[in-house]
């Protein structure tokens, strides 16, 4: 195939919304996810953003780094404000704009959980995206309920976190909402197709995007995509879609149903400074956690 025939795997619209020169750290996964989002929706989105890294990334008044609409909202309120926006647009007959709650793991798994559960139960017509960098990165790497076992944070500074990661996608599956998906910045095309799927469905849709954070996870910024992929390849982060009561494993995770196809978890852990002092028994516990997650997923497989 000649070079002139090559087509980009994401539409060119991915170029238009995320403007260069934002305030994100080196190697930040969040603008990568935003680019994929824009490949699907262009500028016809209203992002409802609670306190999180994105609040800072999009920059300072009077500018913003996104050619899209943004409403900055109280920490606990993303799902509630998004519900209001969606209802207002419906009442006003605006149908060409997608309302998206765009929140971090703290704003979702912790302080925003009640509002999220409420909006999910009411089946509000919106998409909720949790970008999961596994700690309160914006305030300086404090532990969240989404921080995994053994990870160093500034509030688990010596022993690392002593509990496993809260599984928010599983909680949303328990709400029986129309669509739940897990995704990763390591797999933009997979995320793209999930956003397309979400776009075609009415009601409450939830996507959790695994998003490795270089300063928070203590790795070289160049490895953001590599570490995101390793989380999937080791089976630690399972890519799937939940729809109509069933789970479908996504391409990159499908072969990993067979544990022998998974790469050793140590490959994932050793690239990250946050696991530098992890005790061997905690690594075993992480391995059991991975097995438990796969057992859960299997129960819902088509």
């Amino acid at each position: 195939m000649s070079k002139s025939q090559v087509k980009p795997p994401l539409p060119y619209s991915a170029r238009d919304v995320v403007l260069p020169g934002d305030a994100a750290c080196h190697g930040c996964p969040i603008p990568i996810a935003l680019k994929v989002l824009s490949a699907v929706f262009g500028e016809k989105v209203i992002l409802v953003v609670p306190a999180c890294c994105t609040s800072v990334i999009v920059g300072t008044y009077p500018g913003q780094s996104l050619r899209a609409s943004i409403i900055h909202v109280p920490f606990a309120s993303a799902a509630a404000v998004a519900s209001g926006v969606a209802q207002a647009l419906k009442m006003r007959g605006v149908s060409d704009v997608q309302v998206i709650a765009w929140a971090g793991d703290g704003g979702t798994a912790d302080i925003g959980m009640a509002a999220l559960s409420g909006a999910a139960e009411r089946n509000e017509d919106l998409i909720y995206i949790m970008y999961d960098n596994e700690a309160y990165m914006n305030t300086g790497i404090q532990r969240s309920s989404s921080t995994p076992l053994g990870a160093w944070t500034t509030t688990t500074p010596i022993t690392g976190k002593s509990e496993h990661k809260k599984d928010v996608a599983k909680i949303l599956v328990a709400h029986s909402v129309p669509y739940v998906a897990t995704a990763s910045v390591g797999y933009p095309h997979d995320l793209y197709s999930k956003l397309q799927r979400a776009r075609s469905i009415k009601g409450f849709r939830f996507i959790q995007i695994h998003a490795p954070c270089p300063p928070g996870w203590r790795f070289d910024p160049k490895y953001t995509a590599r570490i995101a992929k390793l989380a999937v390849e080791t089976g630690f982060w399972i890519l799937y879609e939940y729809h109509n009561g069933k789970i479908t494993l996504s391409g990159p995770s499908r072969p990993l149903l067979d544990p022998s196809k998974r790469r050793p978890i140590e490959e994932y852990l050793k690239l990250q400074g946050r696991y530098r002092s992890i005790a061997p028994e905690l690594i075993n516990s992480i391995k059991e956690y991975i097995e438990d997650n796969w057992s859960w997923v299997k129960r819902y497989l088509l």
Partner: protein
Amino acid sequence: MVRVVKPEENYKLPLTKPVVGVAGKTGLWRTMRPVVDNEKCTRCYQCEIYCPVNVIRVEPELGVTIDYEYCKGCGICEDVCPRSAIVMVPEPGE
């Protein structure tokens, strides 16, 4: 029905508009610079897709171009390139 009418007083409202370089010329943050060998490039678009600053463009004829005014030099493009067509080199010191 709803209509936008400006407030009577003329103080600022907390509203923002899209702008390139909202955090300044982020190219100044760079300590390492991605250098492209377009002969090696296969136009796979990996670097463009993963670039968090959205400064890489892959064009079938031209290959890879990078807007160094805003490239922060994170090095993701180097890491995702399957052909090692992008290499990070130190920026000249002061």
